[in-house]
């Protein structure tokens, strides 16, 4: 056995490779003899660093080559070369071409955007300045603990709302893949770069995608994100019919874990329950066959024991102080579905679209914390009569209008949407609140993203200023509210937001009276 590799000390060397997709097309890359080494690939920069050439170290078989070819041609076109394609470009780092040098296959991959490299990095020192923002930096409580010497600088962390927006983007990226029948197969904080500052996320390592009808790549995923059924059957032969492979539902497990980790900075399955006295076996069982949600409502056997954990894991490791219910009712129900009902029953796992909608609806429940020193800055309304920030304990001052959305079930009968909008000063109202036919997703037009009005606390009372609603009506006082006028927001009032098809009624409740 020898790992002796050829090594040239002759300095920088620009090499050229040819596309195997487009005859005559070539790419240059800089070979200084020491490529960046990924799990399976050696990566070289193009001369202007706008792309990289990533060569597989191992020879790729026919199936793998066909899979990669499809990714850079057919799937590339269907994702990006159509209306709305630019939005998706920001969600992935998708290979654009395939090259070959001798018997080695390589991919041309765009370089990551500059937002995905640390501007400051650590609070103290330059240790990771300029390095990639791999997701784990933001998914672990340690790196945000104020006494931890290797913590990230505050300017890198964003606030709690940033992570909801990041999770929305990850969910959208996964949703689009699944809509095309693809599965990522290795979603993890290693393969999703995030930037809390610009609230962006991008899915990388696309080349592991499982393409329908072609053999899956031989990976089971990254520790922490592998679905329990994949771990529980990984000892079986690859062709054994009982062996569970990565697919759409294993992606959905990984997605749920990722969302939980980015919002709560702890792992949903890593608790204190010991399933075997052998460390390796215990780990396999605890994440596989015997996996159990640490916050399971009726089985407390896998609760986190704070005394056994690292002090840097606090306060997030404390599931009593910061239970998953702080993420609000919509996400609570999805976490239950993912980590209780669907943990060992893949088909019950919530799909990416459901996560996206629940995350978006939850942002409508969020309130800014009035404590300027609060680390999280935002929190989800806890549905109590005396609401407070779960992170710093600061109570909301003054009254708090709660708007419940209703849709017309049949003439004169309105039913609740299970969608609530919490008002705060200078909160905007949008088309997707007004009309149930307008879905808040990546396909919104520029015009639909313009606010239709705003709420403000004015002369000691809450008002809504109507900017764009042509048929806004105060049903309680039976009065039209013309454009550029305002209406008082008071307890028990009903407003018709639009008389068009799909137009909603909001019912106002004043909390914290």
């Amino acid at each position, binding site marked *: *056995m*020898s*790992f*002796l*590799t*050829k*090594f040239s000390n002759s300095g920088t060397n620009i090499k050229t490779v040819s596309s195997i997709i487009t005859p005559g097309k070539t790419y240059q890359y800089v070979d200084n003899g020491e490529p960046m*080494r990924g799990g399976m690939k050696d990566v070289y920069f193009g001369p202007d660093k706008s792309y990289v050439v990533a060569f597989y170290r191992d020879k790729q078989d026919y199936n793998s080559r066909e899979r990669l070819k499809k990714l850079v041609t057919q799937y590339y076109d269907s994702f990006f070369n159509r209306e709305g394609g630019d939005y998706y470009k920001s969600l992935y780092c998708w290979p654009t071409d395939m090259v070959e040098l001798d018997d080695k296959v390589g991919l041309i991959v765009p370089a990551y955007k500059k937002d995905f490299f640390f501007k400051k990095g650590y609070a103290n020192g330059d*240790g*990771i300045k300029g*390095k990639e923002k*791999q997701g*784990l*930096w933001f998914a*672990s409580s*340690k*790196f945000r603990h104020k006494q*931890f*010497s*290797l913590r990230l600088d505050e300017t890198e962390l964003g606030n709690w709302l940033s992570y909801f927006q990041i999770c929305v983007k990850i969910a959208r990226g996964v949703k689009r893949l699944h809509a095309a029948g693809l599965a990522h197969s290795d979603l993890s904080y*290693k393969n999703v770069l995030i930037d809390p500052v610009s609230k962006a996320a991008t899915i990388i390592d696309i080349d592991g995608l499982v393409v329908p009808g072609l053999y899956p790549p031989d990976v*089971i995923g*990254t*520790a*922490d994100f*592998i679905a329990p059924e994949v*771990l529980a059957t*990984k000892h079986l032969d690859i062709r054994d019919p009982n062996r569970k492979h990565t697919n759409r539902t294993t992606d959905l497990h990984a997605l749920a874990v990722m969302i939980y980790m980015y919002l709560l900075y702890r792992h949903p399955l*890593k608790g*204190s329950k*010991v399933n*075997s*006295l*052998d*460390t*390796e*076996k*215990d*780990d*396999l069982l605890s*994440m*596989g066959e015997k996996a159990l949600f640490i916050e399971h409502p009726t089985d407390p056997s896998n609760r986190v*024991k704070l005394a*056994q*954990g*690292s002090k840097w*894991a606090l306060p997030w490791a404390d599931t009593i102080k910061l239970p998953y219910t702080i993420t609000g009712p919509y996400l609570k129900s999805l976490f239950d579905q993912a980590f209780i009902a669907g943990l060992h029953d893949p088909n019950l796992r919530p799909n990416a679209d459901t996560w996206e909608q629940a995350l978006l609806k939850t942002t409508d429940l969020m309130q800014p914390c009035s404590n300027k020193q609060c680390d999280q800055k935002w929190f989800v309304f806890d549905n109590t009569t005396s609401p407070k920030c779960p992170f710093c304990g600061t109570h909301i001052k003054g009254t708090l209008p709660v708007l419940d959305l209703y849709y017309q079930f049949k003439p004169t009968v309105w039913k609740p949407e299970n969608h609530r909008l919490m008002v705060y000063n200078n909160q905007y109202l949008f088309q997707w609140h007004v009309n149930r036919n307008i879905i808040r997703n990546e396909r919104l037009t520029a015009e639909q993203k313009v606010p239709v009005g705003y709420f403000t606390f004015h002369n000691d009372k809450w008002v809504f200023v109507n900017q764009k609603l042509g048929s806004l009506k105060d049903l309680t006082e039976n009065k039209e509210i013309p454009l550029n006028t305002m209406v008082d927001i008071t307890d028990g009032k009903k407003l018709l937001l639009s008389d068009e098809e799909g137009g909603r009624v909001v019912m106002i409740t004043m909390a914290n009276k």
Partner: protein
Amino acid sequence: MRRLPVYLLLDTSGSMTGEPIEAVKNGVQVMISSLRQNPQAIETAFISIITFDSVAKQVVPLTDLASFQMVDIKATGTTCLGEALKLVSTCIDNEVAKTTAEQKGDWKPLVFIMTDGIPTDDWQSGLEEFKKRKTAFTVACAAGSGADANLLKQITENVVSLDTADSQSIAKFFTWVSASIGVTSTKVEDAGKEVTGMGELPPPPSELNIVT
């Protein structure tokens, strides 16, 4: 959180005087700062340094990457590799937590041994002790022509050799050690897969020769 214990056994005998010992000190520093760029390693890896010359000493107990501080080491005396193997065995007993019914234990330790000479003590009795401990893997590095790779083969099947014990080669070795820790801290939890043998590690840089 399970810890990944890493023990570095470094030869500080007289023959390491000068460039080699400086290179080792520098290598440890570079290794620590490189590991501090890896969030997985910061989450799991704990490092301990054991030096051996006429005696073996644990100069840094098992310490997390954030708190790790290198101490000054000097090259002097003979090469008590056997004592070092005994000492690392005791340290593993004392420092590496076993899984019990109540508490999850640590991962099996990684052990890296670097020496530039022939042991001067009864190294077989040390080896006997060491063999009783379970490690994820042990790598021995024969630095320069004075070391006996075949002797090290009796300690572990994973032996690498540096042609010369100069600063460049030693630096490469530490780069490789940090890459190995990085890979292992990521992979170790991967399905409870046993990390054994060098197939799991990144290929060493070209100056290292793997002794087979």
